[in-house]
């Protein structure tokens, strides 16, 4: 089982503003959503995990093995990070080449890379667009290309930064399916989100970050009813939870189906 452990992490961009002071977090096989406002430290956290930023203090390990000294490029074989803005990475003239770029960098043969890329593109539903120019596609489709380009690297851990931004209903459904599939394959999944409904719907565990501190961490079901704590981090509850509370039920509802079943039973 994959276990990613951060212990006593301290980090700051400039001497007077520190982002983290002694942060401890452990990620296990549960799919985890990290929520919080901009500036809460979410992106900084995943950059540290990915080796793009080096903490001034503390240790990082995967399965007990320290990774503190590894560069981002070395970690590329183990940890995949899907960035928020696909435009920061796309440079190839067709979708397939773009998705093959990562796998080729980490030592896949052309054959393996193409196989992996085609599979990844199938998962995001872009298999019919392999030879299109990425910039002829929409931003939401480019986001899916960026996602596929990390999936194709077949890393044991995948981190997503805001994958649902700008996605329509169908896009979100695809991402949900991908996350569940990766989880079934035994991969460690972490996801930064602004979309509370998606977090409640898809993830087993939710971590709420506020100003560099974990203010809530637990099963998603236990996190979202905590209205007061969420408000402290300027977050709203998922719609389902809001509806249940508006109707006067304070039990924990995070899925539409649960609330429907509950209301049906009451009748």
């Amino acid at each position: 089982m994959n276990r990613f452990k951060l212990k006593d992490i301290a980090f700051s961009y400039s001497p007077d503003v520190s982002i983290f002071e002694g942060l401890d977090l452990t990620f296990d096989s549960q799919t985890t959503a990290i929520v919080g406002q901009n500036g809460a430290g979410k992106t900084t956290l995943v950059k540290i995990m990915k080796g793009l930023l080096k903490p001034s203090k503390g240790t990082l390990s995967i399965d007990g093995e320290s990774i503190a000294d590894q560069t981002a490029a070395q970690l590329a074989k183990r940890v995949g990070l899907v960035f928020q803005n696909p435009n920061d990475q796309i440079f190839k003239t067709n979708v397939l080449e773009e998705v093959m770029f990562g796998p080729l960098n980490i030592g896949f043969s052309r054959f393996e890379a193409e196989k992996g890329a085609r599979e990844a593109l199938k998962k995001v539903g872009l298999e019919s667009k392999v030879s299109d120019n990425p910039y002829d596609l929409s931003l939401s489709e480019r986001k899916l290309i960026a996602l596929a380009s990390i999936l194709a690297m077949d890393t044991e851990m995948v981190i997503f930064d805001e994958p649902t931004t700008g996605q329509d209903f169908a896009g979100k459904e695809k991402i949900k399916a991908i996350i569940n599939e990766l989880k079934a394959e035994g991969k460690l999944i972490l996801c930064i989100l602004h979309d509370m409904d998606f977090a409640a719907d898809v993830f087993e565990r939710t971590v709420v970050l506020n100003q560099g501190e974990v203010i809530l961490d637990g099963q998603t079901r236990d996190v979202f009813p905590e209205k007061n704590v969420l408000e402290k981090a300027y977050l709203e509850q998922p719609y389902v939870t809001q509806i249940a509370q508006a109707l006067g039920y304070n039990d924990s509802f995070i899925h539409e189906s649960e609330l429907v079943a509950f209301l049906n039973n009451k009748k």
Partner: protein
Amino acid sequence: MNTMTLYVERNSPIHRLDPLVKLLYVAASILLTYILPEPLYIGGILFVTFLLLIIGKVFRNSLPIVTLSMFLIFSLVIVQGFFHPDNVTELFAIGPLVFYEEGLYVALVLVMRVLVMVGAFSLLILTTATDEMVERLIKKGMSPKIGHVILSVLQLIPQMRATMVKITDAQRSRGVETEGDLLTRVKAFFPLIGPVVLNSLNETKERSIALEMRGFDSPMKKTFLNEAKQYPHNKLIAGLITGIVILGIVWRVFG
């Protein structure tokens, strides 16, 4: 925010001058070094320029800018001193290489010219806010669109620098090595510059739309939020500078 310009906000008479007058000074001082190409005169212009930098309270800020030209200055002295075609009078020799007086004289003129140029330019850019200069030029007939371009570059580049960090992160995450032998580094150039170009072109599209929606292409005569600043003694100073240049020409022709 870091707006990139070298402008230093100070309260000095030079800061209060019309940017166009300072621009005129840059042109005039460089021109004079050609009208009167003797070390004595160029030295005089250089002295005046340094004096103005001191009055403008930016002399110290001009030093790093001058330092940038150090290699050029050094190279001028060496190359001209040793190899200028007119060289005859030996000053000293290092092994087989002989350093000549004529070359040194040529180099001296060139170096002082470089210093006048850099000094006068520094005077302009260190004491003038770019937007003030651009607005002034627009009012004198420069296309407002060109003005917009100049100002927006200054804001855009810091943004692009931030993008550059993100791109480097994204590509390193996909296994791109940015350190190593020349071939590795050459190979990294495309994955890094590619997204910069695509990103900026894509943004061009969005920003054009935003500008269009703000009447950028409007045929109306543009108005200005800021009132035109009053510059005291503007005409007098401009006239004085022009007068000195004319005097210099007269001196050269008849003197």
